[in-house]
């Protein structure tokens, strides 16, 4: 097995329907300082479940190659916000979305958005590891085939590459046919990340990816997220403030109004600013542990 860069050529239509080829290279640690180029622009996004407002007019930019953490107490709409970014909110019949989300300039709530391409471009990792009850190999091959990668050699190359990217290759290379559910929780979560990476996304959405894992597995995944930044734009929800502080470039603090139970964005800015010199007293109280 080789460590070289695998060049996989296949037509990958972007949301804007432009075919391109891409290269999967070995990972490098991402630059801590990001060029502030917004890849996702959220404007006045509101979410309603069955007519009840769950998230109130959020406006923020997600910058390319950076890690943006979403923090705040339970029920403040972080996960709802995250699932609006790849339109998983569509799955909830009673959910209505107002406002716009532009990914690379294109409104994903527009009529012409290709959902399959959107979700290929914006990968998602859930709180609990969710591998399919298939073999390790097939977990990665199935979505790849679905997106038009059918050559066995390509699939194998991508599988090896992404499993190396998440540090799972050495642990599973001799048992790729084993059921994915036989892996440990941390390994399953890394497999899910690898499965998302296999589609060569630009953006990764992570919904508390470490909260179902033990501290050691959690540390491994955190280290992986750190390595992935730079090459991918990462938006991550976490309840672990120490972790948020360690990995984030930008932080968004959400809060929920006591009486109406409506989530809203209190403050968004560079991680250092949110954690050390927050402008809002609510943020200050939350990050210092005085409330929440």
């Amino acid at each position: 097995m080789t460590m070289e860069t695998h060049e996989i050529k296949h037509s990958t239509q972007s949301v804007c329907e432009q075919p391109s080829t891409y290269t999967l290279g070995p990972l490098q640690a991402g630059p801590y300082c990001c060029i502030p180029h917004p890849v996702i622009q959220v404007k006045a996004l509101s979410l309603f479940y069955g007519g009840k407002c769950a998230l109130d007019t959020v406006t923020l930019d997600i910058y390319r190659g950076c890690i943006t953490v979403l923090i705040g107490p339970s029920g403040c709409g972080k996960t709802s916000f995250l699932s609006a970014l790849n339109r998983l909110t569509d799955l909830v019949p009673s959910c209505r979305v107002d406002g716009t989300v532009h990914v690379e300039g294109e409104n994903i709530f527009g009529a012409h958005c290709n959902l399959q391409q959107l979700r290929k471009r914006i990968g998602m990792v859930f709180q609990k590891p969710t591998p399919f009850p298939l073999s390790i190999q097939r977990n990665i091959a199935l979505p790849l085939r679905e997106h038009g990668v059918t050559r066995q050699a390509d699939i194998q190359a991508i599988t090896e590459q992404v499993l190396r990217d998440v540090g799972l290759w050495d642990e599973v290379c001799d048992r790729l046919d084993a059921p994915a559910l036989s892996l440990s929780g941390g390994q399953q979560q890394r497999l899910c990340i690898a499965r998302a990476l296999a589609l060569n996304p630009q953006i990764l959405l992570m919904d508390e990816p470490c909260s179902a894992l033990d501290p050691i597995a959690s540390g491994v995944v955190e280290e992986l997220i750190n390595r992935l930044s730079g090459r991918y734009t990462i938006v991550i929800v976490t309840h672990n403030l120490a972790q948020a502080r360690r990995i984030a470039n930008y932080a968004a603090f959400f809060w929920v109004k006591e009486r109406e139970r409506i989530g809203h964005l209190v403050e968004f800015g560079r991680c250092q600013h949110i954690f050390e010199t927050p402008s809002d007293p609510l943020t200050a109280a939350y990050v210092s542990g005085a409330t929440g």
Partner: protein
Amino acid sequence: MSKLFVNKDKMSYLLRDLTIQVLIYSAIVCVSGVFLWILFDLIRGGSALLSWQFLTDVPRDAGRAGGISSILASTLLVLLIALLAALPISWATAILLTEFISAESPFGRWVRYSLQVLACVPSIIFGLFGYAFFSLYLGLGFSILSGGLTLACMLLPILVSTAEAGLRAVPESYRLSAVALGMSRAATLFHVLLPVAAPAWAAGLLLGIGRAAAETAALMFTSGYVDRMPESLLDSGRVLALHIFDLSMNVPGGDAPAFASALVLILLLLVINLVAMRFTYLWQRKKLNAE
């Protein structure tokens, strides 16, 4: 000895435990006892007559002599038609109910409610309906086709509800991650959901086959009770359950062949069970692990 348990408490705890165990084990003995009793009774009464010739000969002298080859053929044909008609409709309905419309939608509720009502309808009513609709209105007469289609109507509620329950039992996270990976509904259904739900679907299928093979009343009015070998699907044909009923109620001296036929029916169901389970297991393994 710790003070945690006062001796009296400990005794009552053990006693309760013992009572529950006795109850559970006696329930198991009752259930398997009934099955073994029936099987033993059938083997005792029917094994003497059971032979290759009994299976391959046509009935003679109203079933007192000869065999049951034509009856077996009619039974299998009726079953086949019932399954061919009912399986696609009910599985498609189950997929529609779970994957394409929400559980609370008015349409979904209405379909589910009508299936529940259908499940409560006694089989004799299905027989009368089949006779009125398939035999008279559609002009199929007393025929295997008419009997099979009537059975198909009867099977719908069982097949739909078991298949629906099977699909609902598949963790929602599989669907969610498939959508998040941009996979199509069809691919998710075929590559992930169905293989996971397959054992439940097979169990439903077996329940359905069991009910269909045991059906007497509904077929009396539709497929009829002519005991010769059917020549086409529009021919009348007598199924095993009806044959057993006829031999034991209407034919003096028909007890021995009735026992033998019942034994054949039970063995047939056992074989179908084993084959279906094996097939499901192999298919599931192939779908879940094959590259």
